[in-house]
C-alpha cells in the first residue's frame, strides 16, 4: 500500500457555516432580524434581554432561544417578557452551533416573527467561530469584570457589532471606570456601538431597543435575497 496525498482544502466548520447560511436565507425571506448575544457567564444576558424583549414586543413579535449546559431557568426568565422563549440544553458544550438553533426554532412560523434573540452559552472564547445565521452579534461586558475585558478577549470582540456594558447600577460600588472601559472597547473594536445598560434600573434599555428597531427597519428596507441556499 503506497500513501497518496489528497488535496482537500475544506473549512473545518463548513457544516456549521452551511447550516448558518441556509438559516440566514430563511430569516431573510421571512424578514426575521436575528441577534446573537454573547458574554461571559453571569454577565447579565438574560436580565438585559428580558427588559429589551419587553420593550420591543410592544409593537413587534419577538422570540428567543437560550443555550445553557443545563436547566431551563433562563428560558423561563426570558418568558417573563411575555415573549415565547425556548431552552437549548447543550450538555457539556461551551457554545451554540447552527444546527442546535435550527432544531430549536422548528415549528415556529418565521413569517410571523420580527426579532429572534439567540442567547449564547456564557463564554468569551468558544462562540466566536460559530456563525448562527445572525444579523448582529451583541457582546455584553458587565462592570463587575473590570475595564480591560475588551482587551483581554480580542478575538470575540473583533466579531461583534455592538457592545452593551451591563450592570451599570453597580459601577460606583465596584469602582468601574466607564471612560477607560469605553476607550478599551474603541481600541479593540473601533467604531463599535456601545450602550451603558442596567437590567435592574432599566438604564440604556430604551437606547438599545431603539438601536435594534433601526436595524430591524433597515433590514426590512433591503431587497430580500431569495436565492435558495
Amino acid at each position, binding site marked *: 500500500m503506497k500513501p*497518496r496525498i489528497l488535496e482537500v482544502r475544506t*473549512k473545518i466548520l463548513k457544516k456549521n457555516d452551511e447550516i448558518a447560511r441556509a438559516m440566514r436565507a430563511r430569516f431573510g425571506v421571512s424578514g426575521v432580524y436575528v441577534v446573537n448575544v454573547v458574554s461571559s457567564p453571569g454577565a447579565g444576558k438574560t436580565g438585559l434581554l428580558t427588559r429589551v424583549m419587553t420593550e420591543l414586543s410592544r409593537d413587534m413579535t419577538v422570540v428567543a432561544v437560550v443555550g445553557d449546559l443545563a436547566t431551563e431557568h433562563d428560558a423561563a426568565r426570558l418568558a417573563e417578557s411575555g415573549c415565547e422563549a425556548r431552552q437549548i440544553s447543550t450538555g457539556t458544550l461551551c457554545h451554540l452551533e447552527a444546527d442546535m438553533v435550527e432544531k430549536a426554532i422548528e415549528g415556529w412560523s418565521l413569517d410571523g416573527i420580527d426579532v429572534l434573540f439567540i442567547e449564547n452559552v456564557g463564554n468569551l472564547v468558544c462562540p466566536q467561530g460559530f456563525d448562527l445565521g445572525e444579523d448582529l452579534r451583541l457582546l455584553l461586558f458587565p462592570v463587575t469584570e473590570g475595564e480591560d475585558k475588551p482587551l483581554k478577549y480580542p478575538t470575540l470582540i*473583533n466579531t461583534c457589532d455592538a457592545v452593551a456594558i451591563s450592570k451599570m447600577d453597580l459601577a460606583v460600588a465596584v469602582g468601574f471606570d466607564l471612560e477607560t472601559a469605553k476607550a478599551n472597547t474603541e481600541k479593540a473594536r473601533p467604531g463599535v456601538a456601545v450602550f451603558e445598560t442596567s437590567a435592574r434600573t432599566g438604564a440604556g434599555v430604551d437606547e438599545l431597543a431603539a438601536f435594534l428597531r433601526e436595524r430591524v427597519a433597515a433590514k426590512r428596507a433591503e431587497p430580500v435575497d431569495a436565492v435558495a441556499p
Partner: protein
Amino acid sequence: MHELSIAASLIEIAEDAAREAGAGRVRALRVRVGALSGVVIEALEFVYAAAAEGTLCEGARLEIEAVPARVRCRVCTYEAVMEGVGPFICESCGAPGPEVVGGRDLELVTMEVDEHEAANS
C-alpha cells in the same frame, strides 16, 4: 473547550474525503489554524487522538500549521503580521483597529491516505 467539536468536524470531513477518493486508512491530516480562529492548537492536539478513535483517522498524524494574524491599516494601508491576537495598533502610523486580512483560517488542507486494500488486489 470547543476544540472537541472542531476535532469531530475535522474527522468527519477527512472521512468523507477519504471515502470519496476510495482510500483506506488515513495516515496524516495537514491543517491550517489561524491565530484568530479561536482554536487553541494544544487543545486541538489533545482532543484529536481521542476523537479519532474508531474512525478512518485513528492513529493518523495531525500536522498543524499555525497561521499568524495578518492585518492592514485602514488609514495608511500598511500590512503587517501581528504578534499575538491583538488589540492591534498600526506599527507605521499608530492608528488602532486595522482590518484583519488573515489568521482566521481553520482548514483541512491536505491529507495522506493509503490506497484502499480492495483496490490493490
